[in-house]
């Protein structure tokens, strides 16, 4: 499969976001793994360069080495701090500043959640936090729903990338609205990455076939029975979907067309 990766590199420019470029179009999270060793091996297998992390209080009663930096080499991976769990723009801005202060980069995966059951975004809060953070020099990668107008507003607000969901966070329901995702991708100038909802490799492949610039996923890998194998499957699926998109699929027809010559029959 190494040739596949080389061939892809030849025809596909790297993913460019906020002035940085990445070879892998698969971005992965670090949450929900059974243990740190499995997480590290899965991330390695995924080929991802961008790895998301959350900002939380140090648990002063427990081992001081539970922090992620004790397990993941920040010189090897591009750490993308998130604002997961934030329900207001102010809270998300506070977390973003803390994440930046950890000292790795100005990128933030911005989440402003609007509802505890669906984890769908509070789009008004999201747009307002994007404005503030972009003005502070952040490269905002905004997790949003699959609504075109919100995506356009986020771009106007200064987002470096817009990241609509395939389906709700952690649901594994796959790409529910390919039409919306294609429309968003067609209309935005900034990169569009699908964030959340992918359940298995075929979901990732179909999502990339819509022409998006990349996919961010966590649960699909972390909760697979064998996370390392699923990480590898996702890597191939993202590559396959990207190549298929670039290749351009054949038209859909409602009738059969033979593949073998109809002349020269006995």
């Amino acid at each position: 499969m190494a040739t596949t990766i080389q061939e892809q590199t030849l025809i596909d420019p790297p993913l460019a976001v906020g002035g940085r470029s990445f070879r892998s179009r698969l971005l992965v999270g670090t949450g929900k793994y059974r243990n740190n060793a499995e997480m590290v091996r899965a991330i390695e297998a995924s080929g991802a360069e961008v790895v998301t992390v959350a900002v939380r209080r140090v648990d002063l009663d427990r081992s001081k080495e539970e922090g992620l930096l004790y397990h993941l080499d920040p010189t090897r991976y591009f750490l993308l701090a998130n604002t997961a769990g934030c329900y207001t723009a102010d809270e998300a801005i506070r977390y973003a500043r803390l994440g930046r202060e950890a000292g790795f980069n100005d990128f933030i995966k911005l989440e402003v959640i609007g509802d505890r059951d669906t984890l769908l975004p509070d789009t008004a809060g999201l747009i307002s936090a994007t404005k503030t953070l972009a003005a502070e020099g952040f490269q905002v990668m905004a997790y949003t729903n699959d609504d075109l107008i919100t995506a356009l507003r986020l771009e106007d607000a200064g987002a470096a990338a817009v990241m609509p969901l395939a389906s709700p966070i952690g649901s594994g329901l796959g790409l529910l609205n390919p039409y919306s995702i294609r429309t968003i991708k067609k209309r935005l100038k900034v990169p569009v990455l699908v964030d959340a909802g992918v359940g298995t490799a075929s979901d990732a492949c179909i999502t990339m076939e819509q022409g998006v610039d990349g996919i961010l996923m966590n649960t699909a890998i972390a909760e697979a029975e064998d996370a390392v194998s699923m990480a590898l499957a996702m890597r191939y699926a993202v590559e396959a979907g990207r190549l298929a998109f670039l290749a351009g699929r054949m038209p859909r027809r409602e009738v059969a067309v033979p593949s073998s010559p109809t002349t020269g029959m006995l």
Partner: protein
Amino acid sequence: MTRLTLTVNGDPRVIEGPATLADLLRQLELDARMVVVELNREIVRRPRLAETEVQNGDSVELVHFVGGG
């Protein structure tokens, strides 16, 4: 020596004063390179930890990166 009552990560904690944020991290056995410090909701950058004294009643948040999506 004075006793200072701080709120650290939401819980009350009594330490011996005078003390700086760097002293507090040392007492808690935390590596300053691995945590970000907020004092009364203002981030205190690493170079300033050793010169920033904590006062009675201060609220300190100590955060780091954990697994997340």
